[in-house]
């Protein structure tokens, strides 16, 4: 762990059970550098510094499209497909093995309803019709000539963390519990511009967005969501991956992932919602009364500690950096508090700049683990003033008959050997 500090130099405790002031790691500078690593440290021993073999011969040749180090083979999506299918289900982002806020394109989570279509961009068309003055057809070549906008936005499945509604805490690693969440830099054409060219009729209140996959995945989108909507052609600088909607997808920052229709082929401007399968039989929140909340679009403020998290292990008592992600479909994250005593006491974490609306925000908090019992939690507040609820509060309001839009606080218990377990606290 960090270099021993003189007695008068100990960081102030900011909250119970070893939570330090969020500035402690920054202020301490070099003296604590490297102290936060949770991966097991190789034992330092005499003779460890030998001549590295990779310095004794020329390295590998160029490749056209780079891949991660072969030593990072564990950093992959995990996935499951519906019975009798191979590409219908979800793959999950390994959040516990990533840092920063941007999800590499090959690790962006996926949710497909009938596999990934192999779309020839020259043969793909976008049709805009319905309540418009001029129904229009766009080629990719045409769209590529439109003025573009770039923004960073998270996409989260409305069913992400659905397992936390279960009566007993599911023993899942972070990827399995929270991995239907990713964040990328998206570039594309403002949907509003294309609709303006088509000439939207005054009675238009909704649109239907439809994908060109074999499920023809379709969702109704309220017209007010168009303000921020992009028809995205690029994902982290390169063309959108097939698994994320190549050659173009709808991006509705902050709204549940299912609405961000991939492989976008058609926008139909309508007076009311179309009541598609996914906005009626799925993605509605069944309450204990038997009624279901429908059209719950933006995802409420949420956060999770990614490191440490279930599946990772702490390597002995000492100083750690607790790190995690916070996000809100209603705007910017304004504050994240962290607790090491199961929510009895809290202190504000440092937020990594830039903090962007409807994007993942990385938070960090120094913590001195004394080797004893600890329950780590994070609690996000967004710019609207909304505070992420405890699981108990969320369930008191919503019950456990649904699977969607769980945004309660997750609790990670640290065992005596540094193992991390999911608990309800």
């Amino acid at each position, binding site marked *: 762990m960090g270099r021993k500090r003189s007695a008068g130099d100990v960081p102030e405790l900011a909250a119970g059970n070893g939570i330090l002031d969020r500035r402690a790691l920054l202020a301490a500078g070099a003296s604590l550098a490297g102290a936060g690593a949770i991966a097991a440290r190789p034992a330092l021993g005499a003779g460890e510094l030998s001549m590295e073999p990779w310095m004794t011969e020329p390295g590998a040749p160029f490749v056209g499209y780079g891949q991660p180090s072969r030593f990072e083979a564990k950093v992959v999506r995990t996935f499951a497909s519906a019975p009798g299918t191979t590409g219908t289900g979800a793959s999950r982002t390994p959040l516990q093995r990533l840092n920063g806020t941007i999800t590499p394109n090959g690790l962006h989570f996926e949710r497909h309803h*009938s596999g990934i279509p192999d779309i020839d961009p020259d043969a793909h068309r976008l049709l805009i019709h319905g309540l418009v003055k001029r129904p229009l057809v766009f080629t990719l070549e045409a769209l590529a000539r439109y003025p573009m906008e770039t923004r960073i936005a998270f996409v989260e499945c409305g069913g992400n963390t659905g397992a936390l509604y279960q009566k007993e805490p599911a023993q899942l690693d972070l990827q399995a519990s929270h991995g239907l969440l990713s964040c990328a830099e998206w570039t594309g054409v403002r949907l509003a511009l294309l609709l*303006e060219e088509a000439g939207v009729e005054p009675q238009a209140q909704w649109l239907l967005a439809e994908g060109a996959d074999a*499920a023809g995945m379709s969702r109704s989108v309220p017209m007010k969501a168009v303000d921020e909507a992009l028809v995205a052609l690029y994902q982290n600088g390169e063309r959108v991956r097939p698994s994320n909607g190549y050659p173009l997808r709808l991006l509705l920052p902050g709204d549940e992932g299912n609405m961000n229709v991939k492989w976008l082929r058609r926008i139909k401007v309508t007076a009311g919602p179309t009541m598609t399968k996914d906005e009626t039989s799925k993605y509605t929140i069944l309450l204990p009364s038997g009624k279901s*909340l429908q059209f719950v679009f933006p995802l409420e403020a949420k956060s999770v500690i990614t490191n440490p998290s279930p599946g990772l292990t702490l390597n002995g008592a000492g100083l750690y950096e607790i790190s995690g992600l916070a996000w809100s479909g209603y705007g910017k994250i304004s504050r994240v508090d962290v607790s090491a005593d199961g929510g009895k006491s809290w202190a504000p974490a440092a937020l990594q700049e830039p903090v962007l609306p409807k994007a993942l925000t990385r938070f960090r908090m120094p913590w001195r683990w004394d080797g004893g019992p600890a329950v780590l939690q994070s609690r996000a507040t967004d710019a609207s003033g909304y505070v992420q609820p405890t699981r108990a509060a969320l369930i008191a309001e919503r019950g456990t*008959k649904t699977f969607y839009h769980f945004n309660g606080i997750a609790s990670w218990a640290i065992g005596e050997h540094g193992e991390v377990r999911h608990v309800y606290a």
Partner: protein
Amino acid sequence: MSMPRHLRAAAALLFLSTAALAETPDLGRPATPEEIALWDISIGPDGAGLPPGNGTPQQGETVYTAKCLACHGEKGSGKPNDQLVGGLGTLTGDQTPVKTVGSFWPYATTLFDYVRRAMPFNAPRSLSNDEVYAVCAYILQLNGIISENAVMNAQTLAKVQMPNRDGFLPFSRQK
């Protein structure tokens, strides 16, 4: 530039007028009604978009047995994939909800829309409109929503009252 003066004046005027309108690329081409009819496969909850054709529960059973049963089970009972029939009365209280077409789906038009666009899973868009009407009729009849003798078509399907039609509350954020 050797442009005659009157052309120069016209060009300047054209530039000014388009600039004032905030020029957009306008690179879409007009879609024809035939193209739109070919591509517009969505059905509104009022039945808008339902095509000609018809089908009965009995005809639907034949289609279902051949093309749906392997995934959705005998009489829509589920296994290995989604259960389509039953579950009435399971939405309230502490019991595990069984959300099927009969117990949960608010509109029968959604059933036609979804079957036509996405089913059968291995060959979507392969059923005729008559076959889609028939399969819808069979599933609705198994759920006790229509009678064995009912014929489903663009008029009758849109009028089917689903048991959970009033089970949805539009969400509005309290904060």
